[in-house]
């Protein structure tokens, strides 16, 4: 084997394999990186709404009927 063939087999090929695995491990998913948010900065992303699918179970109250919305409000 020539020197170039040795380099190809023992250096270049393993290097390409390692590089490929590295890209697949680290590179994939970067586009879904965690959104960094700093209080006060503008929010220019689309609105998002998540909700579950479990059937709702209503619990009857003997002497109370829900008539008002509840909740709370605050800012940071």
């Amino acid at each position: 084997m020539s020197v170039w063939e040795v380099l190809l087999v023992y250096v270049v090929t393993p290097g390409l394999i390692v590089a490929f695995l590295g890209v697949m491990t680290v590179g994939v998913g970067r586009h879904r990186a965690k959104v960094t948010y700093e209080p006060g900065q503008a929010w220019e992303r689309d609105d998002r709404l998540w909700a579950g699918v479990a059937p709702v179970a209503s619990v009857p109250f003997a002497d109370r009927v829900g008539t008002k919305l509840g909740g709370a409000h605050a800012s940071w």
Partner: protein
Amino acid sequence: MPAGDVVIRGQRHNPGMARVETGVLVKIVPSCGPVGNDEVFTTSQLQRLDAIISDAENATGLRFAAYIGYLGEDSRARAEEIVASFGDDAAYTALVALSPGQRVVEIVTGTEAALRIPERGARAAVLSVIAACGDGDLYGGLTNGIRILTDHAGVVTRGA
């Protein structure tokens, strides 16, 4: 559930019924199904958020929703609109809505959910949300808020 629609004991074999922790049977209201999509959080965060919402709903029998986006000038009205969009489930819905651009959090509970989650519970959830969001942790704000609302709503034992 409409006013006066008291669930009758003894219907333990009705698949549309569930038994609460105290032994009372309750009516199962059909789900409104999944809504929205993702991109704001990482895949693992979305999986955890999904699990938290699912666990909360299974435990409490309420519909839980999380929203991130612009809430407009009247943030409360917009949040109530979102809750109303759940149709038949609206009364049983608890929403944690964040508007990062406005730095506002709104928690809205439907008319029946408000009976389960007292105002004190909603305020506790809001405090937790603003503490997390003030540090830039929107995901933590949403999940903490839902968890606290869950704790205050109590547990419904399904099936009989």
